[in-house]
């Protein structure tokens, strides 16, 4: 690494000097570097600093000596056609070839740096989809690799605009921010508006508003289902074979599965244990409202929390198979995406 950097820095020397000494200097640097670092870290660091300083001074002296060299006489300009020369300079002598090469390299380096900066900016932009714009988007958007995006869910993303929509995804590898940030500055106001932004990893496709709804494009719905099944701990645990269907046997096994999610062993499941997260700084009332909304929004949780108190009690856990069967609208004995995925917003007061 150091030798590569050193070789790179040697390009600051004038071409004539470089052609004479660059290889030798790199060899000597290599040997001296090994010797310095073999003596210890302090010697190694001192060596690096000394070499950097020496190189900077050396470059300045080399260029100063170069400028002392007598200028080349003006070259005979070759006419391109009709006696018009192809190259003019303000000086009475033509530039040295080394100067032209240096200028070319510097121009190329500058051009590359500017281009790289533009490319970096394009690939690392913070993709921000404001809530207002989300309503009009209506289409899936793809975040290219390297971008950071915000997936917005909120009141304005419900096509009907009727009531606020709470979609709090739990911990998921696709989400880089576990705590979901409110769009509004005022945390209480944010809670009441319930407009949220989820930060997603590069390469994650932004789903169209209402992707969870049956009418959404099939691709959005599939993607949403995949994320949903991994993000919601309760749903993920119930779907033991990961086929996005909670089968009859999985329904029967629900109490044991739910008990395994009871991290604090108090016999019940809270909203947090079910995958809900509360942004820091929320007041108690807002937190309570959000938890309640979370438990109501997700059909599986809403069914399990039969008394709608925002928690799945021990009794409700025992009664889980019966509660889950209430979601089975076509009575085929299993829960499919139509039964499991959220369908509409929940109005929160």
């Amino acid at each position: 690494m150091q030798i590569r950097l050193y070789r790179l820095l040697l390009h600051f020397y004038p071409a004539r000097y470089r052609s004479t000494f660059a290889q030798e200097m790199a060899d000597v640097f290599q040997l001296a570097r090994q010797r310095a670092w073999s003596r210890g870290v302090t010697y190694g660091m001192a060596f690096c600093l000394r070499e950097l300083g020496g190189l900077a001074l050396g470059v300045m002296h080399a260029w100063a000596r170069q400028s002392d060299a007598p200028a080349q006489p003006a070259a005979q300009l070759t006419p391109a056609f009709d006696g018009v020369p192809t190259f003019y300079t303000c000086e009475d002598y033509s530039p040295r070839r080394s100067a032209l090469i240096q200028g070319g390299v510097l121009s190329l380096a500058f051009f590359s740096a500017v281009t790289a900066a533009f490319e970096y900016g394009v690939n690392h932009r913070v993709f921000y989809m404001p809530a207002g714009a989300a309503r009009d988007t209506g289409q899936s958007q793809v975040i290219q690799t390297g971008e950071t995006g915000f997936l917005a869910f909120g009141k304005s993303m419900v096509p009907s605009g009727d009531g606020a929509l709470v979609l709090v995804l739990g911990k998921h590898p696709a989400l880089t921010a576990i705590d979901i940030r409110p769009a509004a500055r005022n945390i209480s106001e944010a809670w009441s508006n319930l407009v949220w932004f989820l930060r997603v990893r590069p390469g994650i496709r932004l789903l169209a508003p209402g992707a969870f709804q049956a009418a959404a494009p099939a691709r959005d719905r599939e993607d949403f289902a995949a994320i949903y099944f991994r993000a919601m701990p309760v749903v993920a645990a119930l779907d033991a074979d990961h086929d996005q269907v909670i089968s009859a046997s999985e329904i029967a096994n629900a109490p044991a599965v739910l008990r395994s999610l009871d991290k604090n062993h108090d016999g019940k499941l809270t909203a947090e244990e079910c995958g809900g997260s509360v942004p820091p700084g929320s007041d108690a009332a807002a937190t309570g409202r959000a938890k309640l909304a979370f438990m109501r929004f997700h059909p599986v949780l809403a069914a399990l929390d039969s008394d709608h108190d925002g928690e799945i009690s021990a009794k409700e856990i025992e009664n889980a198979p019966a509660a889950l069967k209430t979601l089975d609208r076509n009575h085929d004995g299993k829960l499919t995406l139509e039964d499991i995925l959220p369908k509409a917003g929940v109005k929160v007061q």
Partner: protein
Amino acid sequence: MRSIMKTGTAAPLSEPVLLILLSLAEQPRHGYAILKDVEEMSDGRVILSTGTLYGALGRLLDDGWIERFEEQESSRDRQAYRLTGKGRAVLQAEVARIRQLTRLASLRVSAKEA
């Protein structure tokens, strides 16, 4: 350095240059050997960076005090440096100047002590 030879006066050499010339006065050496020898001669006080060493070597080559040649014994194509007659003359002049200065300093210091 160039002015020294033009005027013929023994303007003092910088310590790194003097040590490089002294190193080459003993025998021809390549860059890394000069670097180590200078450090040893000065008891670790003068540690040249690669940039400083080759800056000095470049000037000495331009002034004709040293010359560059390909080391025959080396398995690689390694360049080595040796003093020219001109360089040896400059070095001798500098050593004479230092010797004179040292003698003068000794006389003055001993006279003061007496």
